[in-house]
């Protein structure tokens, strides 16, 4: 199977045949965007300083080296728990026209709806692989909202074949984590029964 690479700007049609569990790679613009940035746009109604239409955001707080003269280098970058942005993501997709939301772990109903209605994907970059990810960032083009501190600033990155990105919610609103959870919980109940019979140490 050949490598599936999406290049920004991404259009609705590009996402048509992509299903949960697929692996894709991203080339183009990826902007870090996490808790406070979501809160500012959705709750405080402060417009984002970057146009995200057709682009990708990354729930991530990087370690960045300041090279002086407004030049920066990514040292380590990796995803943070996406679920924290669940509250805002549907409206965020709606307002920005962002096409890919990259993070860690699953997201919920809201994001499913947002992805389905506005044709977007939620993707998982395997967390903890921050140096690997950093080597796929070619350049930091801009940085905004530096007042939020290093992890929360909007770092506008040019990436090349950034991935592997695992599709966790597809443009039909299917959600791999929700499907897995049903199975995990069933197995957990079975295991509980098995184990609990063998740990009756208090007699």
């Amino acid at each position: 199977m050949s490598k599936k690479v999406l290049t920004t700007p991404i259009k609705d049609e590009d996402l048509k045949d992509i299903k949960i569990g697929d692996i894709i790679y991203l080339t183009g613009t990826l902007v870090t965007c996490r808790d406070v940035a979501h809160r500012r746009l959705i709750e405080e109604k402060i417009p984002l300083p970057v146009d995200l239409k057709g682009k990708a955001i990354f729930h991530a707080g990087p370690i960045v080296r300041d090279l002086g003269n407004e030049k920066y280098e990514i040292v380590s970058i990796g995803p943070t728990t996406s679920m924290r942005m669940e509250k805002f993501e549907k409206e965020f997709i709606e307002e920005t026209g962002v096409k890919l939301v990259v993070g860690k772990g699953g997201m919920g109903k809201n994001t499913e709806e947002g992805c389905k209605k506005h044709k977007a994907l939620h993707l998982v970059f395997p967390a903890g692989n921050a140096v690997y990810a950093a080597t796929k960032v070619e350049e930091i083009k801009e940085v905004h909202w530096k007042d939020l501190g290093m992890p929360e600033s909007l770092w506008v990155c040019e990436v090349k074949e950034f991935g592997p990105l695992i599709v966790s919610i597809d443009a039909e609103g299917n959600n791999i984590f929700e499907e897995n959870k049903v199975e995990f919980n069933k197995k957990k109940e079975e295991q509980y029964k098995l184990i609990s019979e063998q740990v009756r140490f208090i007699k």
Partner: protein
Amino acid sequence: MNVIQDKTQQKERMIELMSKFISIVSYKLPDDVENKLKELSEEEDNRLAKIIYKTMFENQKLASELKRPSCQDTGVLQFFVKCGQHFPLIGQLDNILRESTFKSTKETPLRHNSVETFDEYNTGKNIGNGTPSIFWEIEEDSDKVEIYTYMAGGGCTLPGVATVLMPGEGYEGVVKFVLDRMTSYGLNACPPLLVGVGVGTSVETAALNSKLALMRPVGSVNENENAAKMEKLLEDGINAIGLGPQGLKGSKSVMGVNVVNTARHPSTIGVAVNTGCWSHRRGKITFDSNLNYEISTHKGVTL
């Protein structure tokens, strides 16, 4: 005067060594974790899981080559200290560990992960009120100090939980408490996990035990026969759930389950869970009274 001068120099020397050690812990996993991950990846047959393991090994290789933190979340630093009563810098040790953290943060660099509570600002130094967290034990008649260094990332700290059960709920209750946490929070804590279970008399004893359990090597076994049995049952049980790396399914879920236990009140069972993620960055270093050091968790590594 001479003696004081000596102490200042010694202190500086130890800060120098400790900050380098912290840096190494940020980009190189301990041998037990590395070996276990390798073993798990070899047993894996899930397609996604295999790709994730491959990414993990490439990442660790790059991190140690480039000497960069392997995960961007370098956590809140936590130190578990066993200090001999005659270790010359016993009184300075808290400060030494604080300053080492600050120095390593600048030099490695590590992420700034200290937010003052209520005032809600990031100190920008990776140290704050009570961070790094330092836990003490004093050893009689010794002049050495053993220091576990641990980077407690946000994702793997989040599943932490403690409660007090009634004896009527028994160890069955402990099992339920642990398993429930795995399928809710454990999923997002970057499995395969090292699960620390603490059993004791109250929430804080259980909680500390559960973190100490994460300092124990992967594959080590509790001395108590029943506790060891529960470790194995939980390990097999959680593995059977098949969380896989990143909670995206796979043939296993954990690197292991470690239980640390202390005595309890007749009417209570304190229980706590702590999780270490696949990127379980802990290291153990021992200094003698002349500051000669030995690193037992990372073979072949020198500062």
